[in-house]
């Protein structure tokens, strides 16, 4: 095994706006192997979606500057031409969006929309594309696919639309699937069905999945590895178990604390993270989380506001925080104890 299937190295996505440069993603690196799922967690505006739009090359080139390296199966994507990207999109890598109603064209039938991706990349006939669309709808569990294939998106229910969206993304058996909050707009039972569907399809085809969400419960269900983003940077990464059970960054800890737990006592109040997400136009100095961090005063010499904590990754595990491992062990367990009593 030489290089990983997908490798993102020091990715920077900067938007130029009238007010200045917005550093939406500021030096992000991660790897993803085939058949694995990487969960990317973070608040709105943390750079999750921007990262994935950059992988597909869907950013607006007029105001976006990309830097770094994105290697998909040894093919560099940042320097790729639009034509090269067109051949990859929907074919080798594809994307599922959050709002399926807005993301599907209201003017074309479900079958046309699924079929045209297939036709574009295989050059097959309309008839073959239609047959393929019906087969895909059947595979994602749409009842009567041969009838529903001629329906328009607004005739589908929310869950069915998301299934159709998945069918569309998977029609060319992509090797990389980016799912941008695919279940956020759905109710919980449908959400579970969609997750199961994605897991089944992944097992069948060995697809690599990047799953973007702000819902740690969803991460716990589907991800192998987790990457926590804050203010355009990765603050913590590791396996799902490591990150969720033993977080090493105060922000991850805060995320866990702001989520109700089913196995704990029911009367424990949630403890949301104080403050609001950082401005990316004028980000906080040092550690971008320090203005909201409960433990910033525990680090000597104002290092949190003065010096950017580096993300040192050993065996895929790491957190960007100035606290020493001893401090974390003590402070984090106190925090956890306070929540359960």
């Amino acid at each position, binding site marked *: 095994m030489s290089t990983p299937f997908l490798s993102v190295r020091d990715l920077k996505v900067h938007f130029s706006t009238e007010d200045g440069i917005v550093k939406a993603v500021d030096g992000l690196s991660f790897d993803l192997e085939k058949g694995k799922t990487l969960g990317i967690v973070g608040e709105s505006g943390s750079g999750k979606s921007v990262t994935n739009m950059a992988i*597909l090359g869907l950013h607006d080139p007029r105001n976006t500057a990309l830097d770094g390296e994105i290697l998909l199966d040894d093919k560099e994507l940042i320097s790729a031409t639009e034509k090269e990207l067109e051949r990859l999109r929907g074919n080798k890598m594809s994307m599922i969006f959050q*709002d399926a109603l807005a993301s599907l064209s*209201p*003017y074309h039938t479900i079958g046309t929309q699924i079929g045209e991706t297939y036709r574009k990349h295989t050059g097959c006939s309309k008839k073959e594309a239609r047959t393929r669309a019906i087969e895909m709808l059947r595979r994602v569990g749409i009842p009567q696919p041969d009838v529903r294939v001629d329906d328009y998106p607004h005739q589908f229910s929310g869950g069915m639309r998301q299934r159709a969206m998945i069918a*569309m993304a998977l029609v060319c058996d992509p090797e990389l699937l980016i799912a941008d909050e695919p279940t956020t707009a759905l109710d919980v039972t449908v959400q579970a069905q969609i997750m199961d569907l994605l897991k089944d399809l992944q097992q069948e085809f060995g697809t690599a999945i990047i799953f973007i969400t702000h819902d740690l419960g969803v991460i716990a269900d589907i991800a192998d590895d987790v990457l926590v983003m804050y203010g355009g940077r990765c603050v913590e990464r590791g396996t799902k178990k490591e990150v969720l059970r033993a977080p090493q960054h105060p922000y991850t800890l805060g995320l866990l604390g702001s989520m109700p737990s089913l196995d704990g006592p029911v009367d424990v109040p949630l403890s949301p993270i104080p403050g609001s997400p950082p401005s990316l136009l004028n980000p906080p100095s040092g550690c971008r989380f320090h203005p909201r961090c409960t433990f910033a005063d525990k680090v000597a010499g104002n290092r949190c506001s003065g010096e950017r904590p580096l993300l040192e990754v050993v065996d895929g595990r790491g957190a960007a925080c100035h606290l020493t491992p001893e401090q974390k062990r003590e402070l984090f367990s106190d925090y956890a104890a306070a929540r359960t009593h």
Partner: protein
Amino acid sequence: MFRFLVRRILGAAVILLIISALVFVLFYAAPRDPARIACGKVCTPETLELVRKNLAISDPLPVQYWEWLKGLFVGRDYSSFGHCNAPCLGYSFQSREPVLDTILDRFPTTISLSLGAAVVFLTFGVGTGMLAAVKQGKALDKIASSASLIASSMQIYVVGVFATYLLVDQLHLLDRASYTPFTDNPGKWFSGLLVPWLVLSLIFTANYTRMTRSQMVESLSQDYVRTARAKGLSSRTVFFRFAWRGAMGPIVTIFGLDLGVLLGGAIITESTFSLQGLGMLSVKAVQNNDLPMLLGVVLVAAGAIVVFNIIVDTVYALIDPRVRLA
């Protein structure tokens, strides 16, 4: 779809009925008596009564309206003009000619003027609007946007006179505005209408440029356009099959309404270029207190608007399945 059309056509008939009744009432609300005018300087009560009878305006208002309506469907007999076949719009008070004949005589001028201008402004308006949307924020977009803003604040009676002076009188590039039936001489038909087309289009083009640009810009930012790109479709496919499809609806709507209004008579344009179309006819009918002519022109104008409304709704349903299946 069939039921939708039947419903719309019935609705349109009711609207036309109301409009014609309104014109009738408004006409008689005016203090001038058409019979008195037609009667002339030496007018005895007897002749006045005779004129009334001849013009078919001696009966009470509702009876007159009923006779007029009946004439539309079964024809009508006049004491002075004789029989008038259905659809009968009566005889002009002024020229004593059948109204329908006069309208049919003038309509081709208005149709030629409107459709020709529509071709010009739709082509250029939508074309520049699309270009501006593609080149969003760049020089071309800024030029197109500001030019259209200037053009849309122009007035036909100013531009028309100026264009005639410059292009026709001074530079001798184009012909003076005139109407020659297409069937008589297509070349003269074209050259005679070119200046009015260009002038009338100027203002419309500007509106269509701005509308197309804003619709396309909005449409291009839609999620489904992003999805289409994420599927690997080429930018051309994305632009025309997805973004333009979404932008079309409002443009078709406005276009249908504009065309309906234009077909009812482009009053200012026709006056500026002395073209004898429906617009001029309606102005004259008002000036002359010519009720049958006025009713006829209003009916045709309202009919054009109503018909194009139905066409717009039908086209809209074809463009957007959400309308069709709702």
